[in-house]
């Protein structure tokens, strides 16, 4: 499944299969068409995940299994109704965000999904190789909702990064990102702040990352308006959200990648580039036909 040249990845996949035997076929499929470059990126990511997790790997592998089983329950509800189960932030707050134990397991599982869900790994590779490469030297960077800290760490390590900032509305999320950056030790110091994006001053950043946040909002268009306001002229935004991807706290349902692209365009952005990454083991065409999850990454420019 995974060549011996990538020992960390191979070892983690073996351990994950031991904790979650019925997932072995999925993991085999996830890596079956992976290029040598893809394996090299995943190997590096496996190393990073190991660093972040430290001696808590067994817990993370178990929490990943728990996450996958929970997603199946959400998938059942989604396929029966054609809608996400929750529609308001208040519901998500009550069922998910206010439950510290649930949130810890959820975030642990999501960190592992960066490796095991091909679309997640693909978006991260695209972000590093394409998005960060488009930023002009001296860029002032912001990530809203930096979560596991992997994207923010990469930006703060980019050679042209002048300043790096992370905003969240949750002290617990800020603490998690802080821990991750303390381990990753990027070249630039990252400023983590409790800030509500809707009440921050305008035009402060040349680069804004908004990854896997849009689908958690009741009114995603308003967030894109805010990002437009926060960017300086000619600034770039990296927007990443999934379509057809039920989860316990997903509110905004996008049924096709083009819905997300159109939403970004409608907010006034120029679309620079896009990536449509289907869920593991399927082609984009098949994922569209079967309404499966597709991660949709959009690089957009503020031109005015």
């Amino acid at each position, binding site marked *: 499944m995974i060549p011996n040249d990538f020992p960390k990845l191979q070892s983690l996949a073996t351990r994950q299969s031991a904790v979650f035997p*019925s997932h072995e076929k*999925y993991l085999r*499929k996830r890596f079956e068409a992976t290029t040598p470059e893809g394996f090299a990126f995943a190997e590096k990511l496996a190393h990073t995940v190991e660093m972040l997790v430290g001696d808590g790997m067994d817990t993370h592998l178990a929490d990943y299994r728990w996450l996958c089983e929970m*997603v*199946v329950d959400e998938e*059942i509800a989604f396929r*029966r109704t054609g809608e996400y189960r929750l529609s308001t932030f208040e519901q998500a707050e009550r069922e998910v965000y206010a439950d510290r134990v649930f949130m810890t397991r959820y975030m642990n599982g999501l960190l592992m999904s960066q490796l095991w869900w091909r679309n997640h790994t693909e978006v991260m590779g695209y972000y590093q190789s394409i998005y960060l490469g488009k930023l002009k030297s001296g860029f002032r960077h912001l990530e809203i909702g930096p979560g596991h800290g992997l994207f923010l760490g990469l930006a703060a390590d980019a050679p042209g990064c002048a300043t790096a900032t992370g905003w969240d509305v949750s002290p617990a999320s800020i603490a998690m990102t802080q821990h991750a950056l303390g381990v990753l030790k990027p070249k630039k110091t990252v400023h983590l702040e409790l800030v509500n994006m809707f009440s921050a001053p305008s035009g402060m950043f040349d680069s804004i990352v908004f990854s896997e946040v849009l689908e958690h909002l009741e009114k995603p268009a308003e967030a894109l308006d805010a990002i437009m306001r926060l960017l300086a002229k000619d600034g770039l935004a990296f927007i990443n959200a999934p379509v057809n991807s039920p989860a316990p706290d997903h509110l905004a349902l996008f049924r096709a990648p083009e819905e997300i692209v159109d939403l970004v365009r409608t907010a006034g952005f120029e679309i620079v580039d896009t990536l449509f990454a289907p869920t593991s*083991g399927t082609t984009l065409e*098949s994922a569209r036909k079967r309404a499966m*999850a597709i991660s949709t990454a959009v690089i957009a420019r503020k031109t005015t």
Partner: protein
Amino acid sequence: MSAHQQKILDEIQALMTDLFDEYDGKVGMTTTAEDIEQWDSLANVQLMVRLEQRFKIKFTAAEITSLAHVGELVTLIGGKLPA
């Protein structure tokens, strides 16, 4: 296999052919998820919900996630349909 079971199997085969469009093998009573690359846990949910809609029945979450092979599915559906 009874005519009733054969009819259920025919319906399952038709749905699976549409859903697992990269699989060109035969679907029979002994077919398992191991035989069909596209048949993973999420695709399984799609299959089961389509079967619910086709036969106007309801599966429990445990039934959706615990089936071993198509034959078991035929029996399960048969048990939920009027005799």
